[in-house]
């Protein structure tokens, strides 16, 4: 067997090993109910803000404390705590991807990904709304 072939095989084996190891690190998208079952495990929660509860953020008191209630499509809700500034435009967001883990009954959030109706986008619904309001 040629040296080149051995090296190729070794490198390919290494790449596959890397991907297998990566697949172990992968997380999952969860609902609130299933995230509660996996307490302490890092998950991705897809939810939106429950507008019935207040969003708690007071930069004068603590700029690194945001708390709100998230509700998912199944209607379950959970309190979310995020130790960072409140993302701008959060109220308008139609969907949130929350990364973190359930801890003592609340969701300890490490990162919030906002899915805004029109960020970078030509979302037809958002545009329709705007056209109607400009009327």
């Amino acid at each position, binding site marked *: 067997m*040629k*040296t*080149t072939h051995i*090296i190729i095989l070794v*490198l*390919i084996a*290494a*790449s596959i090993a*890397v*991907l297998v190891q*990566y*697949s172990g*690190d*992968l*997380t*999952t*998208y969860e609902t609130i109910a299933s995230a509660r079952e996996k307490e302490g495990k*890092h*998950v*991705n929660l*897809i939810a939106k803000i429950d507008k019935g509860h207040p969003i708690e953020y007071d*930069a*004068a008191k*603590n*700029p*690194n*404390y945001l*708390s709100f209630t998230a509700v998912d499509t199944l209607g379950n809700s959970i309190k979310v705590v995020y*130790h*960072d*500034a*409140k993302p*701008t*435009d959060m*109220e*308008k967001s139609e969907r949130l*991807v929350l*990364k973190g883990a359930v801890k*003592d009954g*609340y969701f300890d959030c*490490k990162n919030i*990904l906002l*899915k*805004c*109706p*029109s*960020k*970078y*986008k*030509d*979302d*037809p619904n*958002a*545009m*329709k709304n*705007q*056209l*109607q309001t*400009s*009327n």
Partner: protein
Amino acid sequence: MNYIGEHLLPGQIGHFFAVLSLVASLLATIAFFKASRLNSPLEQQPWMKLARWAHGFVTISILAMFGILYYIISNHLFEYKYAYTHSDRSLQAEYLLSCFWEGQEGSFMLWSFWNCLLGWMVIRTAGKWEAGVMSVLSFTQVTLATMILGVYFFDVKVGSGPFVLLRNEMDAPIFSRPEYLSFIKDGTGLNTLLQNYWMVIHPPILFLGFASTVVPFAYAIAGLMGKDHEWTKPALPWASFSAAALGLGIMMGAAWAYESLSFGGYWAWDPVENASLVPWLTLVAGLHTNLVYKNSGYSLRPTYFFYIISFILILYSTFLTRSGVLGDTSVHAFTDLGMNTQLLLFLLVFLIPSLVLFFIRYKSIPSIVKEENTNSREFWMFIGSLILFLAGAVIIAKTSTPVWNKLFGTNIAPPEDPEFAYNQIQVFVAILIGMLTAVTQYFKYKDTPKAHFRKILVPTVIALAISLAISFFGHISYDKKGIGFLGAIHVAIFAAVYAIVANSAYLWLGLKGKLKAAGATVAHIGFGMVLLGILISSAKKTVLSWNTTGVSPLRVEEGGKPNPAGNPAENLTLFKGVATDMGRYMVTYVKDTTNPLDRKRYFEIDFTSKAGNDHFRLYPDVIKNNKGMEGFAANPAARHYWDKDIFVYITSFQENRSADTVTFKNREVKVHDTLFYGNGMMILNKVSVNPKEKKYLYADDETSLFLDMTVISKEGRFYTANPGIALKGQELRTITDTVLSQSLILKFNKVIDQASGKLEIGVKETGNITDLLTLKVYEFPMINILWLGIVVMVVGLIMSIVQRVKKTGGKNTAAV
């Protein structure tokens, strides 16, 4: 219905040219292909003539479409959907071009534009390869033209046209009125994130890079079709050009991400970034195997494969970013325009035929049976290319998890720390590639005499010394991910330094200072600097605005659990006019101003270092969001030093515009008494008459009394307050004092009883008395090595293009 005030002509002309560009590119494809199948130049002649004319018409169509769209946007013709969704009246002229790349249609036009221009370069230089290469390039043009066609074939929408009318695309009641345009006062505007100068120049360069990958691909396909492998020579400068343009485009995007901090740094392994990095890696791999083939006859098959796969990966990245499939994993992708099937076809129509052709021809591609000598340059270049390719394969596999979810209905999401998942692997790639970049040039093709290796000894020692110095004195202390990763960073720093030093030394040792031939060496030096810059700046990024007040032990979170120190508490609150302690600096929010021209609100933040040797002011700004979003988009401001950058970024702000309805509450107090207020307590220390330090508050003919009070907030912060009164005859004037950050106003009302020392003070607590903002401050060290490295690398690549074109120049052009 007759609508009032519409300008329909530009759109009709634009649409005509969109159709013309499709027809002409089809014609060009057929004619070039026909010509490529013929052998004698005489037979070829009429087809070539027709094909070039057709390509000319394509070019004119694209330019005309550009001109018309520019006219529509700059004249604010909001009856057109493109103008309505991507611009508004207040947009500054310099950002008008950015409107082109905000939308899918405009960016496809940009791609088409470069494709046409590259086509003319091919026509000028390719000689006998012109027909074959141009038939592939023209076919690409056909597929691009369908993307912006916007025509229905049997109820199937093909492409998304840039000249469609708003009223045809939307259902809204106002369109039932003929004068509907008078209600549409303004467009929804250009995304605030794109209103940045990098966004004016980054997309054109990136798209030039995207478009240019088609040329090596087209050469390879032409070679496979004609079973002629001579194309590897003229393709070389094209591959270098592609590597330069794509590399520069990607890193300009990184510079934008860095300056706007939209990703918290210059690189976040975001799918959008990965999708353009991976084709660059495979293209660079192809460039190297191409050189191997040219100099030793090895590695022709990998060269074919790498050039083909690079273009396919560009198409794949187009699919990823434009189909909306990345939805939940990227902050930064276009939405679904309902063109997913077409985008997928765009990918498959190149992927399947090219790979099928490659495998059919595989056996007939010459390959040397005897294996490369491990002492030869070609051996190590091949290994390096292979590592680049596999690194790219790993990255794209990781990036493709959303596609995997779509295909197999799985539910997998990125890991908890997605960036680290990439870094922990790629740091080893950096080590291997850095080392190979350092030593490979010292090998000779075919075989290297043993004595030759002595040359590399000195550079090795120097590199070792420099990297040890960096390791020991550079405070590289990224220990968040354990000692193993930190160790790997140190080794990688050595590899990067080694690449820089060994290649610099090679300029003299190997090339004897012949700068003309130094393109590759210079590019490698640049690449080493890029690696070094990435390693140092990422391993040393620090948060300066670490908020120690927010996590004070006195602060108790709901549920009675203290906020454990070490949580990310990167935001610091500044009250207007109050100097706040921030590590090495005292920072003050001085004031804010609104610039009507760029509609931005600038905050003046004063930095004074505690050591007293540095003082500067930064002006981060926010811009009101558009497109129906509330709130603001923040732009950071940076202080650049030669060895580091300090970034300030406004994360939120509040201003007090509400009417003041709270009244003073009067309280009786004696010296040394303690009073409580909403957020803590205050102590009256003493009363002083005509205090000298308050002289500026009262006149010479007044008698004044000032209270010396200490306010202690619940968080444990101390403030002093000195409310006072001034007396002139029977006239009493009160001098209030304010503790801004506590929203507390104190007023000294009167002396109730002089004998017992009883006084009356008024206490007013308002909800929000002062303007405040929260900010993050980051320090990125040594980032300039990265930017300089990019420049050096691009210069090196251009040098090698120039050198190769000179060498082969004229020879190819003579043929037709």
